[in-house]
């Protein structure tokens, strides 16, 4: 009995809010250019080469990186390394229960993430090998793909893959003419148009841009500027997270060396 039975019907105790902008302010009290509360942590999966967990408000994403490891035989020889991305939403992550297999949207997210990260990774440093980036969205509270890309870049850094720069990504939604940064799921549901931008802020290169809905040239420029500002903010937060992780690892190593020096190992 796998997957959703065709007979059962979802029922929600609360309906989605009809309007997400009340008197020109967002429902959760943020300004139009404010992120939700951001939490980033690396090294959360003990089995993976590198991993990261990101929580932006109600969006929770976990990424695990394995590799570089041997490429699949079917993929053939390649002088450059390969990056394989896989994005999956947990069945309970969305309001309505999802299916167990991979839906079209997930395949598209995987392709978008691959384009976003490939420009940043130094693929020549692991020829003939593949780095697998597996992403699982535990709760989809809005802008899942943007959060996933940011977390994936952190996980790649945690795994020690050479990167030209950290990639950070954010989404912008246009609701009733106003541009909202880092929209929640309710805001995305009511948008006229949206865009996702992934860029490498220090090198100032855009690695991925996906837009939905109609945008005029001027609106697109405004949206891009807002998103680029958001990415710069995220970049600072991501670098801080990596610095803290490195400091913690160094402290742990120093403590272990101290303990080892005190008692010689019996091995």
């Amino acid at each position, binding site marked *: 009995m796998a997957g959703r039975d065709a007979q059962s019907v979802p029922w929600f105790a609360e309906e989605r809010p009809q309007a997400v902008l009340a008197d020109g302010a967002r429902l959760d009290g943020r300004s139009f250019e404010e992120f939700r509360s951001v939490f980033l942590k690396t090294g959360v999966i003990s089995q993976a080469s590198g991993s990261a967990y990101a929580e932006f408000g109600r969006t929770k994403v976990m990424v695990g990186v394995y590799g570089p490891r041997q490429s699949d035989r079917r993929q053939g020889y390649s002088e450059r390394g390969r990056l394989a991305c896989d994005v999956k939403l947990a069945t309970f992550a969305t309001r309505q229960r999802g299916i167990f297999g991979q839906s079209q949207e997930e395949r598209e997210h995987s392709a978008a993430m691959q384009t976003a990260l490939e420009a940043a990774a130094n693929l020549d440093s692991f020829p003939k090998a593949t780095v697998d980036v597996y992403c699982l969205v535990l709760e989809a509270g809005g802008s899942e793909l943007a959060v996933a890309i940011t977390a994936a870049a952190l996980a790649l850094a945690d795994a020690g893959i050479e990167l030209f720069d950290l990639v950070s990504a954010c989404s912008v939604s246009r609701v009733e003419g106003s541009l909202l940064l880092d929209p929640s799921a309710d805001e995305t549901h009511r948008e006229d148009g949206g865009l996702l931008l992934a860029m490498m802020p220090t090198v100032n290169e855009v690695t991925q841009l*996906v837009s939905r809905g109609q945008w005029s*040239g001027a609106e697109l420029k405004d949206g891009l500027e807002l998103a680029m500002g958001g990415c710069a903010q995220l970049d600072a937060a991501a670098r801080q997270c990596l610095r803290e992780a490195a400091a913690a690892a160094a402290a742990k190593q120093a403590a272990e060396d101290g303990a080892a020096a005190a008692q010689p190992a019996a091995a």
Partner: protein
Amino acid sequence: MASPLLSGSEVQWISAGVGFNCRNDGRARDEYRPLEVELGVLAQATGSARVRLGETDVIVGVKAEIGSPDPDRPNCGRLNFAVECSPVASPAFRGRGGDELSGELARALERSMYPGPSGRGGGLDLSVLSIVTGKTCWVVYVDVLLLNIGGNLHDAVSVAAKAALADARIPRVEVVPGEDPTDEPDYEVDDDPSQAQRLDTAGLPLCVTVSQIGRHCVVDLTTEEELCSSASLQVAVNSSGAVCGLTKRRQQGLDPSVMLEMVEVAQRAAAKLHAALADTLAAQQAQQMAVG
């Protein structure tokens, strides 16, 4: 996809040609290859079109069936896009080989033509496809078949899809209520082609792929030129110049100012493409009216 192998000198030759604004076939950087559109190629389908853009050959068939609407949008019909990469185009498409490419093309079409999650922002007004609100509507299946790969698939596919939808003739449906008010109403489908309704495709966008070769933005690449490009942007633009969907493909990063420039190039190219397609469609439809 069995892509031709290019030597380093060929890549240099193509890049230099782009720099001189004279490509291998003599086109300028922002010129499209000659576009041939043929309507009504499949007699059994509700609407169909065949598009040849240089070497690229695409056939689209549109079929309308009665189905139930989306629970989120009970007063709208539905649109389903499916792309098949025929093994005729390349032996690599045997079996499941072409799944990735076809999925990519189908999703790109869907994103540009279908309204977003809020129901707004779509190119096609789907409420005309509704028969009984909340219960029945027309479900339009757009099936694309790739016959030959000559580069620039996205553009050819979007032109073909728009042309086929313009050609589609949805039969008129009469809802006959049953004797009992709680009974399921009866549907009478009118087979008369002259009574059929046509879809208003004026708002549908066309996709333009702008790529970067060296330091220049180029439009409508052939297969060889695609192998030389490092980054490309797919922009879906509608006839009034608004951008309906944007996706970046390929590995290289893009400078933001270059990206905005590419969007402008795409908007200019799309205007020309829309004009060319509108002319062809008008001519073909006038021909059909004269014959039929």
